[in-house]
Every structure is written in C-alpha cells, then in structure tokens.
C-alpha cells in the first residue's frame, strides 16, 4: 500500500498513526509541550512539502521519526543558552515549594527527574537508542532504520545504555541514603 505525502487521505492516516509517537520522541529531546508541538507540526509540513511516496506506512513512519528527531536536536543545539538558563531558574529553590504535596507524588517526581538526568547524561549515540526503545515501543529493526544503524548495533547500544543507567542510578541511590 503506497503512501503519498500530498494525498489528503494518506496524510490524515499518517498523521493519526504517528502524531503521538512523534510527540513522545520529541518531548524526550526538548521537554516542552509547546515546542514539541511546533516541531511535530513542522515535521508534517516537511512531509507534505517533500511530496514523495513511501512504499509502506512503516517507511513513512521512519522518515517522520528521523526528521522530527533531527529538528528537535537542532532546536536544542541552537537554544542551548536559553535552555540552560531555564534549567538554572528551575533548579533554584522555590519559596513556594508545596509542603503539602503527598510524599508519594514527590517521590515519583524525584524518580522521574533522576531517570531523566541519568538518560541525559548518556552520550548521544546511546541516548537516542535507549529513548526510542523505552519510550516509543519500537523494535530493534525499526530503531536501526530510523538511526541508520544495524539491528546488532541497536542491540549492543541498548545494553550499553542500560548498563550505564544502572551505574548512574545506583550511584545516586547511594548518595541519597
């Protein structure tokens, strides 16, 4: 079933099938909903403008993932200074910290943050692989296609990323307790 990017019906189908996935991937690069939405919208604009046919839905998906991921990485690179500034502000101890938060929610938020920091501490070649694996539900083959690496390479990198994450996260636990 061929997919034509300028065909209205195909476009709709591709949009419906991939929007959430693209958002998930882009969010894990920019961590900002509005920016992610802009970048995903731009990805679909490029998809249309490109005016090409894909042999299968999967091929269209890989193309979209590649483009959105690159747009997001470019965005982060370009805006490094602003992003660092925002991070700094976020890290400042807030006077309005809510002491009434349930401790469970606080713990969960802390876990999430620890994981995010650990993932972001990985070198880029491991980070993108593990993020696609963990957050997109894609298999090794798909991840390989998106990143232009072999399936075996994906397998190796997934394992290496996990090993590093384990190291980082268990070191952190020791710091805390």
């Amino acid at each position, binding site marked *: 079933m061929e997919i034509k990017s*300028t065909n*209205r019906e195909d*476009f*709709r189908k591709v*949009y419906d099938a991939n*929007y*959430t996935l693209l*958002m*998930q991937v882009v*969010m*894990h690069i920019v961590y900002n*909903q509005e920016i992610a*939405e802009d970048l*995903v*919208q731009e990805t*679909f*604009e490029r998809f*249309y*403008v490109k005016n090409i046919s894909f042999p299968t839905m999967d091929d269209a998906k890989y193309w979209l993932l590649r483009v959105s991921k*690159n747009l997001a990485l*470019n965005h982060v690179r*370009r*805006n490094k*200074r*602003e992003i660092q500034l925002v991070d700094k502000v976020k890290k400042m101890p807030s006077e309005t910290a809510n002491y009434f938060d349930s401790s469970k929610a606080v713990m*969960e938020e802390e*876990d*999430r943050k620890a*994981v*995010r920091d650990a*993932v972001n501490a990985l070198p880029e070649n491991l980070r993108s692989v*593990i993020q696609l*694996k*963990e*957050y997109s539900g894609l*298999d*090794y083959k798909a991840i390989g296609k998106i990143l232009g690496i072999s399936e075996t390479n994906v*397998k*190796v990198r*997934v*394992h290496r990323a*996990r*090993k590093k*994450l*384990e190291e980082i*996260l268990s070191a952190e636990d020791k710091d805390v307790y």
Partner: protein
Amino acid sequence: MCIDLQMLSAYMDGELKEPYKTQVKEHLEHCAACRNLLEDMKKLDEKIQKDVFLEEELNRNKDAIYKKLDAKCFGEGRQVSFFRRKIQMSIPTAITAAAAAVFIFVGGFVFFGSNAKETNDILPSFSVNADSENVRLVSSGKNSLDDYTLEEILQYLDGKGYQVDISIKGLQPLEEKGE
C-alpha cells in the same frame, strides 16, 4: 556457563532469535543467579519507563494541529504558501554545491551567511551554507540576531508577509551563462 548480559537484555526485549531464545529460557529455569539478573534488568526498565509522557497529555492539541495542517496543505482556494517552497523555486538548481555567501534583502535589513550545513535542510535545492553565526542585522543593531537561525528569520519574515529575495554573491546562475 551463564548468560551474557547483552543477550539477556535482548531476551527481555523479546528480540532474541532462535536457537538462543530457547537456550536462554531453559537456562533461566534452573539458574537463580540469571533469574535475579533478569529481575534487576526489568526493575531498571520500569524505573526508566517512569519518564514516559502520558498519551492524553501528548495529544492535547492533536486535532487543532491537524486542522491547521489540513487547511495549509489541502485547504480550498488556498495557494500553498510554504516559504521553503517559494525560495526553493526562485533559486536555480544549477548552483547546487556552490560555496557562496547568501544575502537576503528585506526592507533595510541585510542578512548574510556562509559556510554551515543547516542551509541544506532549509533550502535543499542548493548547498550554500549559512548558520546563525553568519546571520547579522547590519542596518541597525537593535537586537542581536545571533540567537536566530536563517530559517527562523525567514519564517518570521514570511509570517509577516514580506517578500523575501535571496541573492548569491559572486555567483552567476549557470543557466544565464547558457550552460
């Protein structure tokens, strides 16, 4: 011999092929140490999964964005007005791969750029390179444009309805030379 960790990781992901898959499965049945390793791996995975974003959050503006895209791409009586396409068509393809400086004249502003790889993304029909380091506002230095890329500037201007002309310094389109 116990299971190699990389193999175990692939096994957990359901990516291990036969005959290894069966071998690992059988080994796990009688090796508590490897079972524990697999458990730890699963726990780590659960931990990593905590940073997943909820679908309903991600889809908050899915319909609104679709509407925008549909109107832009397929809307009736609307000419397609992607700025990239306009620019793409106004530049002869013959200058592909030329390393040159790009000058963009918009009102009193001049932006110029040279040597970077981003332009290839923006203007795929030619490989002149430009990036934010080379984009400057030369008429009046009100705001620094260093934070903006050529693409963002073009997008902004396009959004404001400016007619944007790009000329390439020191290069004659090959077509005009009759090639």
